[in-house]
């Protein structure tokens, strides 16, 4: 065995596929784990600083360094960030933005997934003439910078009478979620055994019956992946929120940016960091809870660019 040879000769040559080396403190292990631990600290540092800062009072921030743990833990900044921080004329904190984001994310996720899954199903199982052309345009279109399409969308939404409203934003999220979600569902449905579909056809099932009775129950995993992708993507959106809604409907990200980057008054770094954590909490929860599914989701979503 190659492994035995490596362990015996003590050479730093164990390839990725080798079995676990026997000696714990080999030079190779120190280098690999050492690097990974240092890198991990770098990735964790901002999170640590955010949490620590948000728990300090302003006097402590002014004297201490940002890495020092809080001497006196206070949750006041969190309360303030949630309920009192000011954006423009309103001083009701991030809570407004949070509920806006919820009201944007929930329907956007449901509608975009419903539309795209039916679409992907039609593309995979009910091919009609011209479908591939539209699909290709859709996928290529995913690479067009949003900035190119923003203004025409403003006009379309204005004509529909939904510019500046939550409905308008939901439509925008459905549009821009369509390429990646359709691709995701099309590939998934195309990968299901064809016999299933044929058998159902022979039994006389139609388009919608097959979708609801056969395809839906079989594709729970891909729906979860799509949901993770959309929840994090839509929650984190900033550009569409700022362009397509009025201030009273601003999502949390926009409101957060307005709170932190407002030029008036003393900068309350502790409140800012609490607000930042609050905004990041939803996607982080999705990330930590979903684990591997998140990786699958972004691997698929990465195509969106």
């Amino acid at each position, binding site marked *: 065995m*190659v492994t035995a040879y490596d362990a015996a000769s003590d050479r730093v*040559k164990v*390839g*990725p*596929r080798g*079995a*676990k080396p026997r000696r714990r403190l080999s030079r190779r292990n120190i280098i*690999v784990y050492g690097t*990974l631990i240092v890198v991990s600290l*770098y*990735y964790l540092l*901002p999170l640590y600083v*955010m949490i620590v*800062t948000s728990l300090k009072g302003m006097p402590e*921030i002014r004297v201490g360094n*940002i890495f020092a743990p809080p001497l006196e833990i206070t949750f006041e900044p969190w309360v303030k960030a949630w309920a009192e921080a000011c954006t423009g004329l309103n001083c009701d904190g991030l809570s407004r933005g949070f509920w806006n984001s919820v009201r944007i994310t929930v329907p956007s996720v449901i509608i975009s997934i419903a539309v795209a899954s039916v679409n992907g*199903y*039609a593309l995979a*199982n*009910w*091919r009609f003439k011209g479908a591939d052309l*539209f699909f290709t*345009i859709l996928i*290529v*279109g995913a*690479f*067009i*910078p949003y*900035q*190119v*399409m923003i*203004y*025409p969308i403003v*006009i*379309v939404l204005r004509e529909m009478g939904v510019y500046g409203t939550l409905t308008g934003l939901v439509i925008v999220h459905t549009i821009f979620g369509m390429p990646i979600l359709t691709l995701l569902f*099309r*590939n998934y449905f195309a990968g299901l055994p*064809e016999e299933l*579909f044929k058998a159902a*056809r022979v039994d006389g099932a*139609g388009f919608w019956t097959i979708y609801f009775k056969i395809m839906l129950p079989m594709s729970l995993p891909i729906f979860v992946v799509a949901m993770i992708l959309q929840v994090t993507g839509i929650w*984190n959106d*900033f550009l569409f929120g700022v*362009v397509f809604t009025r201030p009273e409907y601003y999502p949390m*990200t926009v409101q957060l*940016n307005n709170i*932190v*980057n407002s030029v008036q008054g003393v900068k309350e*770094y502790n409140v*800012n960091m609490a607000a*930042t954590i609050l*905004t*990041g909490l939803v996607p982080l929860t999705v*990330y*930590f809870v979903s*684990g591997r599914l*998140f*990786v699958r989701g972004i691997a698929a979503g*990465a195509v969106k*660019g």
Partner: protein
Amino acid sequence: MTGQTRGSARPNQWLRNLNAKIASIPMILTAVVIFVGGTAWTVLYSFTNSKLLPRLSFVGLDQYERLWAAPRWLVSIENLAIYGVLSLIFSLVIGFVLAALMDQKIRFENTFRTIMLYPFALSFIVTGLVWQWLLNPQYGAQSIVRSLGWTSFNFDPLYNSDIVIYGILIAALWQGTGLVMCLMLAGLRGIDEDIWKAARVDGIPMWKTYVLIIIPMMRGVFITTLVIIASGIVKVYDLVVAQTSGGPGIASEVPAKYVYDYMFQAQNLGQGFAASTMMLLTVAIIIVPWAYLEFGGGRKRG
């Protein structure tokens, strides 16, 4: 493929597969109206002198001449070039090295991966604000090093127009390298174990195996990653808004922000359209060769 209605009379071409066609209406509308129509509309109006409202009075290439004479646009392009080249190189190199380390049959792989990828779950706004805080010269990195005794230490990227773009780069790499690592790791896992065995039998050093054998074999993954990073770079907007708002002065402006500001703040639509058309052109330059490599030459995907 499947699902053709086998009606004996073949009533009407248009009614065949009617449900599928109805189901595809959103996709067709998006593709045709928004993606094709919207893009064509913007390109068309970039040749007009639209100000507050879009107007069809053509002025030829005026908007483009004005664009390329605007200092702010030139700064944006320069920033995008520096940021783009460096973030491509760094994220590919760091992402690959991390993936290679993660591929060493290590323990706690999941923990390490979770730590490296979590920034990607966060909004660019959140990332920008955190790094704004970390790079704050009064409290952040600079003051820490100074308090250690090196009092002349200067590192205030967000307040120094010469290096502000590097401050943004640091935040962008923190956010994005985890994704590159994941893609690269998937690529590495796809490589046949026998390659490693063969290389080891031949006594080729590990780094050489990576450079000469593994990386060339991962060409596809590299190209895909490159396209993903590149089209993200062109769109960079949120991060700059959160971290510096384009400042100090105009030192950290980027094209996406130029477009937004001219369209929605300065109400100079023509400039916004011309600038966004230039962005489209940039993306086309990246995407067309990739699409050719990926889909041209007879190979078809999906």
